[in-house]
């Protein structure tokens, strides 16, 4: 077929980061399950108390990393805005992964975007959660038949809550967040 023009001899600077070839670009990433130090230091009986306190603090101040891919991003912004206020749950949109707890994948994850999603997921501090918002992030949605679209973000990063809809209404994204908060309260042991 047509051979690829290599950019060097054309004198073009190519800033494409080299994530390796196609297969290891789409390798899944496992959720880290490191244990906090206090579980080692504190005796068993006191751990549950500390766990509940920390889980309650964590669930009531979830900072999502604004990661707008496509149409769901507009509904996500709509949820942050005063009509469907997310600030009352203590959820503050935060642009950088370094200070965020939740990654809302809102939109279609294409195979060109997958390595960036993985890198952003790894750069988030532990404990971290992922909300896959919309049909596209869950299993490719209406674009699932096109071969450059990744059929669901859970192929590359572990997902905690799936929010249905295309795009999901702001209320259903809020329900997704409430489900995530309940999940944090239940699994307070390994999130510790």
């Amino acid at each position, binding site marked *: 077929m047509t051979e690829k023009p290599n950019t060097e001899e054309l004198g073009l*600077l190519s*800033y*494409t980061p080299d994530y390796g070839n196609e297969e290891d670009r789409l390798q899944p990433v496992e959720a880290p399950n490191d244990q906090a130090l206090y579980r080692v230091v504190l005796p068993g009986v006191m751990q549950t108390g500390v766990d509940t306190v920390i889980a309650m603090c964590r669930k009531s101040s979830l900072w999502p*990393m*604004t*990661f*707008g*891919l*496509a*149409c769901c*991003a*507009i*509904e996500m*912004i*709509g949820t942050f*805005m*005063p*009509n469907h206020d997310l600030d009352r749950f203590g959820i503050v949109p935060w*642009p950088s*992964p370094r200070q965020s707890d939740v990654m809302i994948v809102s*939109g*279609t994850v*294409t195979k*060109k*975007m997958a390595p*960036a999603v993985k890198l*952003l997921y790894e750069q988030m501090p532990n404990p971290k959660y992922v909300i896959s918002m919309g049909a596209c992030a869950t299993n490719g949605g*209406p*674009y699932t*038949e*096109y*071969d*450059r*679209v990744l059929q669901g973000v859970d192929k590359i990063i572990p997902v905690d809550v799936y929010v249905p809809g*295309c*795009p999901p*209404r702001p209320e259903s994204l809020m329900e997704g967040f409430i489900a995530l908060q309940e999940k944090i309260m239940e699994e307070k042991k390994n999130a510790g």
Partner: protein
Amino acid sequence: MTTWPESQGTSTSLETVDMTINVGPQHPATHGVFRMVLTVDGELVKDCEPYIGYLHRGLEKLTENADYRQAMGWWDRTDYLAGMCCEGAYVMAVEKLAGIEVPERAEYIRVLMMELSRINSHFMFLGAFGADVGSFGTSFTYGWRERERIYDLFEEVAGDRMFPTYFKVGGVTMDLPENFETRCRDILSSIRQGLEDFDGLLTGNEVFVERCRDLNPVTPEQAIAWGFTGPMLRATGLGWDIRKAEPYSIYERLNFDIPTGKQGDVFDRYWVRLSEMYQSARIVEQCLDEMPSGRVLNPDLPKTLRIDEGELYLPTEGTKGEYGVYLMAQGGTNAYRAKLRSPSFSNLSALRELVVGNYVADAIVILGSLDIVLGEVDK
């Protein structure tokens, strides 16, 4: 490599290395998954390499493998800020290709809905552009106050907020609810109130005007060479609007005027979009006054829509520029080839010429003034 000027008496030449900044796919200022690599010397942008394709979802390939009417679900998700403008463009293209008549009332309802979603999309531009220039939260909340009202109106009419798929080949799916006229009029008054608020918030703000005035002026010849259409082209002074130049649907019956800027700088682009919303509100009012009664859907629609040999390119005035739909039919129920001429694609292709030579902060403002939507750039 810049040297400290001799006039300071220090003759040491301090070479500085250009730094490459990656304003990457996940960045608040890129309005989606757009990436540009800026080569920066200190604060000055020396080179900008735009990369797109992070949201390439295969609109054209999927349209070729689906029925004409099924494909509308993908087409209104291209410019996801103004769902109905894209629906209207695609549906009019299919009707013209198949030669299907649309009743008068449906034409008026369509134009009304398209103009409302144009206002909707421009409110998002005002919100995001205010955030790019500096007022992070306020402009977004102002914009969203009006957007939520327009979304409520869309929801009452067609059941969904962003992609109501309210248009159908041959007309409109449902008639308007009874109280639509009163609801629409008071939403228009709140839109006008919202526009005055934005006028006061942004145009009245001296810092905003200082930052945007005389930033990156574009002459009409340059704009045409780069393929600018829509507000980007009208900002340079060339008052070309497809609703006037090549009128489709019932636009030549409505009277509205085309605001144009003077020197095509960032402030003119913002001002053209702001005053365009007043014109759209005028169009919506005219549609409400002259709305004929009658049927909203062509009665004799074929069960399966088969279009024999034929092709067409229908340009329409989308919110960002010329939203053209190219369709080729070879018989059968699927389009043989469909292509979207997306305005943001052409507006964005000239980013390097626009950005090089400005400061980094101004590069973000220029990118914001292009008002790109990645769903339509990457198709």
